[in-house]
Structure formats: structure tokens, C-alpha cells
């Protein structure tokens, strides 16, 4: 698609901006969310958690370093649309193998550039995440029709994308160096950096399809169960919640990230809710309530676990507590069980993109599996 072609983005409340298209052409729909990371667009686009969404990048120049074979976080790019202020015309990086525009086109992702992304972000911040449509080859003359089309597109609340993103074939990431533990990772939209971080620590990771049964999981004799990140409303993840409850009953060590945190929360009887506009960025301050230390963390979540009455609470599986909170808005960012080895965080310790401050959580998971064995 020629980048000079006009394109228009339209929100469900009628807000619209005209820009220029890039990447694939066509009409794209999804939940509009903004990401504030200044680096890491390739990781963002290949993060399955963005499935069903249109990502607005707040950093103005995108595509400067092109794309490379190493930084992808999954087998493809997932958002339905991509909104940037300026797409780079050239690629400047020694690892680059192609341009972002070509890669988006190859993945069928509709892009729009040349729009006031800050204005759009402020709009989404004030009014909340909502549906957006991007329409190639249009300047929005038929705006009313476009608005209607956006309003006809599916909503995020109650949506499930797990079957779309989960791996078709189970696979194993072997432990680097001496093998110290085995875990089964339920792929709800896993990023490749996650098993990589575990493998670095001597954990053999069996990445399995989201619909794998508990019996099949047990047959792999895991030292621990891992629940990945992923897209959609956690309330729909009934199967995963049941698996977590099984693991808790058997006191198998468990670690969850992002979607996994919400699933653990629900398994423990907590509620989840859709946030106004969520957390998406790589600069979020999270406080570990045990140590009082602050980590700078990568976030990508539009749902969250509703905080219980008190930090510590009782569950069917023993005492639990809120272990981490986001200092910006006090949102629950981590849960741990006090009577067994299960814990989860709402953010991304695998950090791709993002800072590596929370690496230690993988060490903690290894320790917990070790203590169980």
C-alpha cells in the first residue's frame, strides 16, 4: 500500500482523525488502547495479548530500527490495527532485516500514521478504552456509516481470543545447562521470552495448548505449572481457572503472569474488572509489599483483579495476600498464597519489551518448585 493514501480512524463515540495508511490496507476493528513505551514496537506487535486490539503508540517516531529475526515474541503480529504519528522511512540498525511497514503488510495489519496520537491518547484516557475502526482509502466522508460499523464490531468485555492465540502443537523449550526443574506452561498467548527466561535458569518448559486437560498436564510430571499472559476477558477463561484450582488442590507450585494473575485471582474467588484504559507501557512503578522495594515494570493489561477488603484474605486454598501494587493507581499487581507455593503478577517479568527489574520472579518460581520436589 502506498503510504500517501489517505486513511481514517474512527472511535465508537464518533471521534475521528484522518491520516495516511501504511502496512496492510482494508478495514480493521478492535479495542483502541495506547502503549507508552518508547522502545519495543516489534515486541509489542508480536505480543499475543494485543489480539483483538488496535494499538496506539504514544512515542512519535516508530519503525526507526525496522524489524529483525530476534525480537519477535511469537509467530506473528497480533493487533488488528496500528496507529502511529510518524512511520520511519528508513531503517537504521545493524540487526534489522526488514521494514516495519512490510512486516505489517505481511501480517495483514492495517496501519495509520500522521494522526495526533497524543490527542487520541488523551481522549482514550478520559473516556476509557473503546472500539476503533481504521478505514484505508477513506477520508471519512461517510463518517456516520463508519461510526455505525465500529459500533457493530465486537466488544472486549466477555471476549475470548485464547483459541486464536494458543499454540496448535505442544512444544518443549529445553533447560539451558543443567536441568533443575520441569514446568508446564499453559499457553494463553505466551511470549517467547517467558520460556526463554525459565530455560536460562535450568527449567525445562513444556508449552501446551490452552485446552490441554489437567490429566494431560499431570502426565508430564511437572514440578510447577505456569500460566501465561494473553488477550481477552479473564472471566471467559473457565478452563484455565479450573486447571488452576486443580493445581491448588494438589499444592503444585504455580506461577502466573498477567492473564495468569487474573486467572489465579478468579480461581481464588476474587473478581476481575475492566479498567478505564488499562496499563500499557514499560515504565510502571510496582511496589513489592513484602520488601518495600519498587520495580519498574512492563505492563499490558486492560483487566485487573479487584482488591479484596484487606491485603490478606482467606481462600478455599488457604490464606492469600496481595503481594504487589502499582504505585500510580494502587491496582493489584500481584497475589501470593501464604500456605502454598502459588503466586502471580499482573505485569511482565519476562520484559520484552521492558526493564529487567523483575527477573527475580523466575528465580522465585524455581525455588518454589525446588522446595516442592
Amino acid at each position, binding site marked *: 500500500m502506498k503510504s500517501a493514501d489517505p486513511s481514517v480512524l474512527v472511535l465508537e463515540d464518533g471521534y475521528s*482523525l484522518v491520516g495516511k495508511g501504511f502496512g496492510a490496507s482494508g478495514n480493521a476493528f478492535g479495542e483502541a488502547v*495506547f502503549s*507508552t*513505551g*518508547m*522502545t*519495543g514496537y*516489534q*515486541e509489542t506487535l508480536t505480543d499475543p495479548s494485543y489480539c483483538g486490539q488496535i494499538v496506539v503508540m*504514544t*512515542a*512519535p*517516531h516508530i519503525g*526507526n*530500527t525496522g524489524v*529483525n529475526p*530476534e*525480537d519477535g515474541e511469537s509467530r506473528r503480529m497480533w493487533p488488528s490495527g496500528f496507529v502511529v*504519528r*510518524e512511520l*520511519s*522511512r*528508513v531503517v*537504521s*540498525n*545493524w*540487526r534489522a532485516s526488514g521494514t516495519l511497514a512490510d512486516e505489517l503488510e505481511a501480517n495483514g495489519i492495517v496501519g495509520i500514521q500522521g*494522526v*495526533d*496520537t*497524543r*490527542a487520541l*491518547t*488523551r481522549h482514550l*484516557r*478520559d473516556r476509557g478504552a473503546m472500539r476503533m475502526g481504521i478505514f484505508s482509502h477513506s477520508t471519512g466522508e461517510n463518517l456516520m456509516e463508519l461510526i455505525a460499523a465500529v459500533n457493530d464490531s465486537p466488544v472486549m468485555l466477555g471476549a475470548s481470543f485464547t483459541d486464536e492465540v494458543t499454540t496448535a502443537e505442544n512444544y518443549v523449550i529445553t533447560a539451558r545447562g543443567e536441568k533443575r526443574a520441569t514446568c508446564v506452561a499453559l499457553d494463553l498467548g505466551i511470549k517467547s521470552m517467558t520460556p526463554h527466561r525459565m530455560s536460562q535458569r535450568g527449567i525445562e518448559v513444556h508449552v501446551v495448548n490452552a485446552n490441554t486437560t489437567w490429566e494431560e498436564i499431570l502426565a508430564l510430571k511437572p514440578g510447577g505449572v505456569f500460566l501465561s499472559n494473553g488477550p481477552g476477558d479473564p472471566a471467559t477463561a473457565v478452563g484455565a481457572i479450573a486447571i488452576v484450582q486443580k493445581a491448588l488442590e494438589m499444592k503444585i507450585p504455580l506461577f502466573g503472569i498477567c492473564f495468569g494473575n487474573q486467572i489465579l485471582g478468579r480461581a481464588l474467588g476474587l473478581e476481575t474488572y475492566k479498567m478505564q484504559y488499562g496499563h500499557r*507501557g*514499560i*515504565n*510502571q*512503578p510496582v*511496589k513489592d509489599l513484602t520488601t*518495600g*522495594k*519498587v520495580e*519498574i515494570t512492563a505492563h499490558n493489561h486492560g483487566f485487573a483483579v479487584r482488591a479484596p477488603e484487606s491485603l490478606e484474605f482467606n481462600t478455599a486454598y488457604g490464606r492469600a495476600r496481595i503481594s504487589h501494587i502499582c*504505585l*500510580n*493507581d494502587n491496582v493489584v499487581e500481584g497475589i501470593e498464597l501464604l500456605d502454598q507455593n502459588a503466586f502471580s503478577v499482573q505485569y511482565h517479568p519476562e*520484559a*520484552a*519489551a*521492558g*526493564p*529487567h527489574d523483575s527477573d527475580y520472579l523466575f528465580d522465585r518460581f524455581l525455588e518454589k518448585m525446588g522446595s516442592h520436589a
Partner: protein
Amino acid sequence: MPKRDDIKSVMVIGSGPIVIGQACEFDYSGTQACRVLREEGIRVILVNSNPATIMTDPEFADATYIEPITTQYLELVIAKERPDALLPTLGGQTALNAAIQLDKAGILKKYNVELIGADIEAIERGENREKFRKIVQEIGAESARSHICHTMQDALDGVTELGYPVVVRPSFTMGGAGSGIAYNEEDLLRIAGLGLEASPTSEVLLEESIIGWKEYELELMRDKNDNVVVVCSIENVDPMGVHTGDSITVAPALTLTDREFQKLRDVGIDIIRAVGVETGGCNIQFAINPDDGRLIVIEMNPRVSRSSALASKATGFPIAKIAARLAIGYSLDEIQNDITAETPASFEPTLDYIVVKVPRFAFEKFPGADTTLTTTMKSVGEAMAIGRNFPEALQKALRSTEQKSAIFTWLEPRDAGEIPALIEEMKRPHDGRLTLAQRALWLGATNAQIHEATNIDPWFLDQIERINEMADQIRESRDLLAPLLFEAKSLGFSDLQIAGLRGTGETRIREIRKQLGVLPVFKTVDTCAAEFSAKTPYHYSSYDSETEVVPSERRKIIILGSGPNRIGQGIEFDYSCVHAAMTLSEAGFETIMINCNPETVSTDYDTSDRLYFEPLTFEDVMAVIDAESSAGELVGVIVQLGGQTPLGLARPLADAGVPIIGTQPEAIHLAEDREMFSRVLTEAKVPAPAHGTARSFEQAREIANRIGYPVLVRPSYVLGGRGMEIVYEEEMLKDYLEKATQINPEHPILVDRFLDDAVEIDVDALFDGTDLYLAGVMEHIEEAGVHSGDSACVLPPITLGREEIDRIRKSTHAIAAGVGVRGLINIQFALASDVLYILEANPRASRTVPFVSKATGVPIAKAAARIMAGETIASLRAIGLLPKVGDGGQLPPGSPVSVKEAVLPFGRFHGVDTVLGPEMKSTGEVMGIDSSFGVAFAKSQVAAFSGGLPTRGTAFVSLANRDKRAAIFPIKRLSDLGFDILATEGTADILQRNGIPARVIRKQFEGTGAQGQPTSVDAINNGEIDLIINTPYGVGPRKDGYEIRTAAVLRGVPCITTVQGLAAAVQGIDSLIHDQPAVKSIQEHARGVNRDGV
């Protein structure tokens, strides 16, 4: 656990005078620190020798010592004040070095003072190159291969291993002083020699060359709980090899993937931990090989740095303020982010805009200086701009420098034949390289060709190509339609640039733009890319779809700042602007600041009610005015406080119907126009030296012949004496005019009789239309002819009687009334043969406003702002902003004597003549304050020059004939005080006849004697001379004494070039020998003054 309660008082050390590499960013950081500490209820004791700083205003500390930053004086302050703690990390390398010295001398221990914000061992680990290399290695990162040298032999050995080119870096110097790149042995001997000299530990490091690599900086902060955040990443557009202070830089980093950026972050965090910066900020520099990504750690500064100030302004995250809170025990998560007012400071700012910083150089002031950019910083100031993309931020920053040559142009002919020469020229990094690259690209050179010549990243070059392509479109398009115009504006094109391309005028483009509705919007710097709503009114313009800044309904006053620091226009003007903002906010106005200098206090979002970070051009300023005028009442714009930059905008703003408050543009013009001003003088009955206005060489020659040589020549409308020279003969006049016509073709040349041997007097005064307040009368220590900015001066004047001051007051009143001043006026008088001549009158704030305010204890910039807003001197006296009675011309009993001394950058520009003349060359100033002139002068010398005045040893004397008579007495006194006197033959002869035992030394041109007798220059180079008295005749680098003065600069020997300066120095030396040094805070000085006893 929040604040420590065992710290009740903290001593803060400032950074002293503005020098290259250490400018007003440390006033910004120090002021923030003082503010925070006082908010926390801590007694603040401040030491800084620089009177032009906001931090040394009496309300920013409990005890403010304007004293030299030396171990001796700092100990006196510590002994007197007994602070609990010392915070040394906010005053640049000067403060850090001072703290190390205090520690080494056992003074901190002796008085039980705790160092906070840094500990000596951490500073050592960060700054000692050997220790730092070990740390880098231990954390698994890489340093450039290198070799530590303490002798020249070490250096020669090292280079056999590393090969040429090598980078030479002395330890413990700031702004890269003494460092450079050696391409061969000759270079090595020269640079390493200077480096060993410059390093306080006589240590230099040779490093493998990584010239041309990508260069990055990270600003980090750490708290006592080991929480670390990266505040900002900065990428240098100019790759490795150019000092970061001289590089065009951009924030955030734009050409790194997340993996590469996170690697920088990980290494940075490991370093701040391993070095052990317990609380506070640090800056780490990295190089990345663009071919394979190899990462090298260059260096760290374990303190708040110039880059921290830039990072604070770039992100809205106030590093210094937070560093001060961390130092007294808070953790990052206990500190609130001012901007969102709901999120904590323990996060990492994210930007949704691009910030570009462009350095400003002053090579035109130093003919003969090497303009090649190296690892030694040479720029004197910088401008920063914010835009929604790189081209916009870059073009805004380039026009913010106010240097025409920095702005992109597309001048025909478009001849590709020029390319090879341009490429050859841009291989040498220098101040004009980016415009060469832009032109070459426009002429058809490829991105790859320019990249090969400059190593500038292809991404940045492509952005410049975008600008060039747009320029072609603007030129070639038949009509200027809204979409094209909008696109051009969003790439940062100014109306002036577009007008140039369309062959029309700026006004026409502005009209078209307004008709088509192509107008800028205003956005907010919020640290969080709009994730949270911002409470802090820090704004920038852009061409985008939404404006988010709503003008208030209040009565508002806009203050125009002074733009990038340059020689002749620096921190002193920012000082006045800040005062105006403070006092007018207090008076109930909404104050709005427009400025583009990231180093300043005025661009702190805490200073005014609103801050617009914008270039100070007519277009950019009008955009803010238009936006702010849409609601509320714009009472007016203040143009007279920020120096020449806003003053130059007075006329066009007034023509556009903007209310200017204070002195009106007509009055400003009246003072600048010689012929009109002459009529004012005639009416005021004040004589000016004979003069004329010439529009050609013939006219100039005729005038000079009529009034007699020497004459002072200059273009009209200048600041800092730009282009001003004393001309002694017709040949020089011819030379001058050939140069001057290039400087400014549109304005005539002024020719004045130069008054030899006059006493020059500088006056600052306030006038409200009726009453005059004579704020200060300063007597220059150098004779007339040395630019007032470079001349030492004393207040109160030491040789003027009451009758003379009364004459000055009357003349000032008459001129102020004649010109029509409302606010400040600065007048330079010359007193010769009992006639008081006027040399110049400037109806604006002068460079001396802060000095006068400190010396007299009266906030005259505040008073000026209030007069501009309609108050009277009488009403200001009534509310106590001005003294109830009296003025600065008749100081009350008990008033101290204050001396201002200029600080010169010659050490940075080897091979440049150090003689002073009518063109200003100093970068900064210090003040010495005491009860007598001798002591005050001696203090000013200690503060301005390392070592200050000597109290014993050998003085070398070489005098111009006209000075010999006047110099005999002071030299006799020197001899009586025990100095050995060495003199050139003619001078020695006269001294001996006057009973002074002077020994003869060979002149330089005579060469070393047959028996190895040294010349004066040899003696200086051998370290045998402690004081040089060399009064030259005429100007020009080849004149007598040039080599003497150059040697003096290189060896750091005090060099006095005027007879008046000699007399002052001898008084100072006398007091150093005979008086006990003592310190007194300005608050104590103020209490000692009997205001009612006039």
C-alpha cells in the same frame, strides 16, 4: 521511613562563576535544592561566589555566603555555621572537588560534618578512571581499552599498545578540560602534556579510539532503599569524538531497539550500584559500535550534571529537587511527581515528543581559536526545543540559537559540483557541520555519502532529507495550500524560511497561514505521555490537531527570556526575568515565561505560572501571545529584562499591536539612535565624547580625523561589545571596516572619541516617569576601553566623592526622563579631567543588575518589574521593596564593599590573545564582599582564578610607555612587600631609577641568551613567575606581549594588563598579607547596614 530528623542544617556548595562546561544549570539545580531543603524545615547554608545566581538571593538560604569556593574559605564558613551535613552533588564538578578537598584536609571530620548525597569513596570510584574501569569489568561490561599515564613516558608506552588515534582524558576535570584526540606523536605530546597539567592528580588516560560510534547518555537516580530509575536517555546526533556538551543531542534515544536500550539500562543500574551512589543522580555515557552493537561504557558523573538539567527540562522530572529530597532520607516512592500530583517519583518518564538540544558557540569572539570540535567542550550555551517529531524539534532548536548560520537554507545555485568540497569540509567535526550535511544532501549527495563522512546515523540524515524535500515542495508548488503549509509547519519550518523559499516576506506567509487556519497547537510536558492528566503548566507548540492548553481568565504578563547563553548575554539576564516572574506572581498577575534555554531557572516549571518552552522569534512568541490573548487580559509583554534578544522583538511586537509594558519601543529606539539620543543629551546637559555616524569608510576617516585618534568604533545595536574596537590609526580603521561591513550591512558604524585614562562608571537605575532610584554606582577597576562586562568593578565607587555621585544621579535622572524610561536603565559614564561624559545608555536590565542587587541588598529587578506593571518608586518604598530613604548612590553606614570580577575562557581557546578590549569575552563573574576594598578585591581574585593573588615570589613587569609613570608606586609597594621584580630592559631601567631593585630579563624576540639566560616566556613556562604585569598597546594577536599572556594562561599565572588593575591587585595582596581572612553572610551584611542612618 521518610526524612531523617538528625539533619537540622545543610551546607550547599554552588558551582562558582559561569565557565565553559559549567554554566547556569547548576544555579537551576542548586536553587531547586535550596528550595526543597527549606521546605523541609532545614537550615540552609549556601556558599557560592557567583552573584548572578538566583540561589544566592537572600531568600533562598538562611545564610548565604558569597565567598570563594576554596578550602580556606569553606572551612571558615563551616567553623562559623557548624552545619550537620554537606550536600556537594548539586554544584557541578566545582562543588564536588571542593568537598573532596575538605574531606582530604580532615575538615569535615574536625567539625563533624556528614557528607550527604555522595560519599568520598563513591566519588572516587566514579571519577578515578582506573577504579571505574575495574567496576565496569566486574559487572561484566566493557570499557574502551586504555592505558593510565602519570608521565609522558607512560603515554608514549601506552600508544605503542593502542595505536593512533588515541583519546587523551585527564582525570578529575570538568567539561572535558585538557582532553583531546591525538593522531600522531606530536599531538600526543601536546595534549597529554596539557592533560597532566590540568588533572589535579597529574593523571591522564589514553583510550582506544571509538570515534564515530553512536553515543548515548542515561540519567539515573537511586534512593537509600536501592530503588533505581532511569530518568532519561539522550542520543547524540554528533557521534563519538565530539564532547556531549558540543553535540546536537536528542531525547529520547531514537535509534535503539528495546533489547539494546535495556542493555544500556541494565549496565547503567549495575554501575550506579557498584559505584555506590547511595542517594541521588548520576549520568553515564555509552558508545555503541553501529556495525555490531558492541557496547562500551565511557564514563560516569556521580552527581547532578549539565545533562541532568537537560534531562529535567526534557522530561519534566526535576532531578535536582528529587536528589535533594533523597539526600535527606526520603525514598523515591515517598516523593510525589509534581506534574501529575498523584503518581510517585519512582517511575521512568516516557516522552510523546522529541527534544533537541543545539549548542551555541562563540568562536567569532576568539579569532584564531580552533573551531574543530573535540572531547574538550567549547560551546558557551545551548538552546533546547520540543516538537512532536525530530524535524520540528531540530528546526525549532536551530532557530532558537539565534545564529542565522545555524538555520537551514536552500540558496541557489543548486550545483552538485559543490558536493565533494562540502563532504571534505564536514569530515572535520565543527560548529557548522550539520548545515553542510543538509546542503550536501539537498545538492544531491546520498545519505550513505554523508554518513561515511560524518558517521551521523542514517536515520537522522533521512530526517534532514525530509526537510529538504519539503523545501523543494514549498518552492515548486504553484499555490501554498493548507495541507502543504501544515505539513511544512509540522516539519518545523518557520514562516521566515517558507517566505525565503517563496520569495516573499514573513508577514505575507503569516497572513496566508492565518487565513487558511494553519495555526500551532499547544501541548504539555507531562512525564507520562498523557497517561495521567498533568497539573504542571509546562507547554510547547506543535502543528497537530488538538490544543490542550486553555488560557485562563486572569490578568497576565508575558516575560520574554534571553535565549541561549552567549558571551555578553547570560545568566544575569535570566536572573532579572526570574525576579520579574516571582514578584509579578506575588502581585497577583498570571506570569507567563517564554524561553528556550534549558540551563536556566526561568525554564523551571516552578518559576512562573506558565512556561512555554519556545524559540524567541517573532513568529514563535506571537503564537503564544495569540493563544494567551484569547481569554483574560494580556496586560503586556516585558522585553527589557532578557537582554538584546527580547529587546530586538519590541518593535515588531508593538507593530503587531502587542502591548509592551515598561519602557516603550520608541524610547528604546531613541536610546539606540545616535542622532536622536544626542538631542536628549543636549537637553540633559550631559556631554558625550566627540563622535559621528559613518556609513562609508570615507565618512569614518573624516570623522576620526576631525575628532582625533584613538577612536572607538562599533556597529549600532549590539550587546556585549560585539564588533567594537579601539582604533589607533587610519590603517586599523580600514581593516576594521572591512570586517565590520560583514558583521552588519544594514546599520551604520558609530565612531567615538576614545577617552584615554578615564575612569569608567557603570550605573543601574530605576525610573518611574517621575522619580529616580539610583540603584548602584560601580567604578571600573580597568580603565575605559575594556568592555564593562570584562572589567572588574567596585561598588560603592572607591574614588568618587559625594559631589561626583550627585552629578551622576542628576545626569542619570535627566537622561532617564529624556529617553522615557519606565523600569531599568543602565548608563556608562567616563570621568576624564573632571568632566562626566556619557558613553552609552541602555534602557533595559543590564548585566550588573544581580551584582548591584547583592551588593546593596535591594531587589532591583523585582522593583523594575513592578514599575513596568504600573507601580511607582514611592509606592515601592512604602511597601518595603525599595528602601524607605536613600538609594544605591548614598549607601548607609556599615555598607560593605563589593568587587565584581570577570572570568575569562582563554584556557579553552589555546592560541587566542588574552588581552582585554571593548569586545566582551568573559563567560561569567564572581563577587568578593568585605568591609574594605583590598580584602574584597583579594576575595574576588581567589574566587575567579585558581590560587588567586600571590603573597610572595617573583613579579614580572613589562609596561607600555604611557603606563610607566603610573605604575611606579604600586610596583614599589610590591617590592616592599617582598616580591622580586623582573622586568624587560626599558621598564627595569625606569624602576631602578625609582629605587626599585628590578632585575632585567630577556624579551621573547631576543631569544634565549648565549649562556642559556631565559626569556620572560621561558621563565613563565619554567614556573619561575608568580605574578605578571603586562600592559599592552593597541590590539591584535601579533602585538607585543601576546606570547607572554598566552604562557600566563597556560601556566595559570595571574596576569594584570592595566595599571588600574595593578593598583587594585597590590591593595589586595597587601590585605592578604596583613589581614585575617573572615567570612560574613549577606544576611549579616544586611543586618549591619543602618538603613535609617543615611
